[in-house]
């Protein structure tokens, strides 16, 4: 996750994203949905990408699989998978990499299953596409049973159709498909957004177990800070197409550096104390009409002149912590919000 430091011994990155840019062509010009995002992941690491709707998080997930469709276009950057640039691969090479090396657990995964195919056939489909040589049926069936077992499903599920399964079971079936070829990187795009909390917990714990078993890296995309805290090791906070803060989940939650992260955390309800619910004043900018300077400046209680003219870069303020904010390096931590601002930011 941390920019390479040649003096420190570290495992090679399995996924390295450099200056990724995805724009949407609109009648009003380019909408910079993802605008220069960089991060890297080592095997076994879990990165949570959190952001509100329109922050570009799902666009990143799609771009990492090179599944961006028009009007969206990947206009720049590199996605290095074990050192090979996914964005520069030929179509054939790309097809080989998908599922085998980098796999997607899509949003609303329950709707991504084919309703007229049995679960086993949908799992075999992917396997056969990558290993076209003849497999004895028995061997395939054993393999399907093993994959289902790994995600906590009975082998009898193999013969069933999606409509015969509950939401949680469908989600696990999708997980079985995504992990069928032991990928090195799993992209999970809001995998539990339509599920109840109890089922969500089961599915996320399953994803975690499978991922640990494989030693794969995970990028979990979502909007729920609670889910990130439960699952991720590192969290990247997205705002208006950019990463504004990256850090280990515990530090990020207890000691946020970016004003947006701080206000986002303050707006979360808790289960142990009743407190005044405080939203973030204002609205996120529309991507075709971005404010000059820092995109968060119109909503930021700390904003000063420089924020309105100069876009802050994401850089390392501490080992393992990256922030894109003009408050640093002058400050060593995020100063307290001026009292007046707290009041203005409170429930209108």
């Amino acid at each position: 996750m941390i920019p390479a430091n040649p003096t420190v011994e570290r495992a090679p990155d399995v996924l390295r994203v450099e200056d990724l840019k995805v724009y949407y062509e609109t009648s009003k010009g380019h909408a910079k949905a993802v605008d220069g995002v960089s991060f890297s992941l080592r095997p076994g690491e879990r990165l949570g990408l959190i952001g509100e709707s329109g922050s570009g998080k799902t666009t990143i997930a799609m771009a990492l699989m090179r599944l961006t469709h028009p009007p969206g276009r990947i206009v720049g950057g590199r996605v290095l998978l074990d050192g090979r640039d996914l964005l520069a691969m030929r179509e054939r090479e790309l097809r080989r990499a998908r599922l085998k090396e980098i796999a997607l657990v899509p949003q609303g995964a329950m709707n991504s299953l084919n309703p007229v195919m049995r679960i086993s056939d949908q799992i075999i489909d992917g396997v056969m596409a990558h290993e076209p040589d003849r497999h004895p049926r028995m061997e395939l069936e054993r393999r399907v049973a093993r994959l289902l077992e790994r995600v906590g499903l009975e082998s009898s599920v193999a013969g069933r159709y999606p409509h015969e399964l509950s939401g949680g079971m469908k989600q696990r079936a999708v997980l079985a498909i995504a992990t069928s070829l032991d990928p090195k990187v799993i992209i999970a795009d809001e995998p539990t957004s339509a599920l109840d909390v109890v089922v969500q917990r089961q599915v996320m714990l399953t994803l975690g177990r499978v991922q640990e078993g494989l030693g794969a890296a995970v990028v979990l995309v979502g909007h729920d800070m609670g889910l990130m805290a439960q699952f991720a090791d590192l969290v990247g906070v997205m705002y208006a197409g950019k990463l504004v803060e990256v850090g280990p989940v515990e530090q990020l939650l207890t000691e946020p550096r970016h004003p947006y992260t701080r206000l986002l955390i303050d707006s979360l309800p808790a289960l142990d104390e009743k407190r005044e619910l405080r939203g973030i004043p204002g609205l996120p900018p529309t991507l075709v009409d971005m404010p000059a300077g820092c995109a968060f400046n119109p909503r930021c209680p700390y904003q000063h002149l420089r924020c309105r003219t100069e876009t802050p870069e994401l850089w390392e303020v501490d080992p393992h912590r990256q922030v894109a904010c003009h408050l640093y390096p002058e400050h060593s931590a995020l100063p307290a919000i001026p009292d007046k601002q707290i009041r203005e930011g409170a429930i209108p």
Partner: protein
Amino acid sequence: MTPLLEVRNVRKVFGGGKSDTTVALEGVSFSVSSEHPSITGIVGESGSGKTTLARLMLGIIGPTHGYLFHRGRDVAAMSRRERREFRLEVQPIFQDPFDVFNPFYHVDHALAVPIRHFKLADSRREVQRMVAEAVEAVGLRPSETLGRYPHQLSGGQCQRIMVARAFLIQPRVIVADEPVSMIDASLRATILGSLQRLNRELAISVVYITHDLMTAYQICENIIVFYRGSIVEAGSVERVIRSPKHPYTQLLISSTPLPDPKRRWGEDAIVEEESTRRSTSGCKFAPRCPSAHEPCWTTVPSLCRTDADRAAACFLCSDGPVLENEEINQVFAPPQAENAPTLPEAN
């Protein structure tokens, strides 16, 4: 004292015929007091019957058995005039903010229609003034929202306009069905905050229907937990959330993803729904319950009072006196208006 709104012993069955029927609600009673403005949470997963209850309380659908009373009058047997009064006093906020607006009209339309319908203003100018005032009351700028179409606004803005609509009509009860589940975290607090303000400043009661225990805990005084159409636990929110008695409530709370990495989900055994196929004529939660024993499969546990301010329907805590359906409000904590924090004025 006659309650403002009372659901009494309601059963709602969907589907006709002999076989394929779904019991969405079973033996549900509770009421909203006309004296103390309250915020009551109705919590449950999908399929728990919470939206059915919302629709029932709004008079959109009628119960199969049981009654909905508005100020002691049966809503099913109301005259036109009484029904109009009922609508004026009981107003909804729905889940999907885009779904409730007519896409062909400016959003102002949704605010102006009730003013005309309930004859709240005398002149066109007054309608405009009231609309602008209501929009400002929920923290939106009229210049940025009025005169626009719903698709030009964000979900959070649309939902706040629905709150503004409630503010405009000033009902006695708002039935809010998942009002923030489609709203981003940073705006969620703002919308819930405006509901709280309606409650405190205009003495409007709120029935807050949600699957999210955390927001319910933050804004409610009392909550009712539903499982598959039945009440499993009810009482003051502090009691129910801090020391849940029913195994289902316990499961819900332990599964809530807290934004605190130090308190991650335990790997404690969860009985999975799909793993047991044993059908039950007793407690509906028995197939998933880690502490299910023989009586659970055959007898439906009644709601028993476990504390002064809580009741639960479980054999594990059935020592207390049985609470008749209609008595459920007895376990609700009275509103604590005097020590509620004061909110800053709208900007």
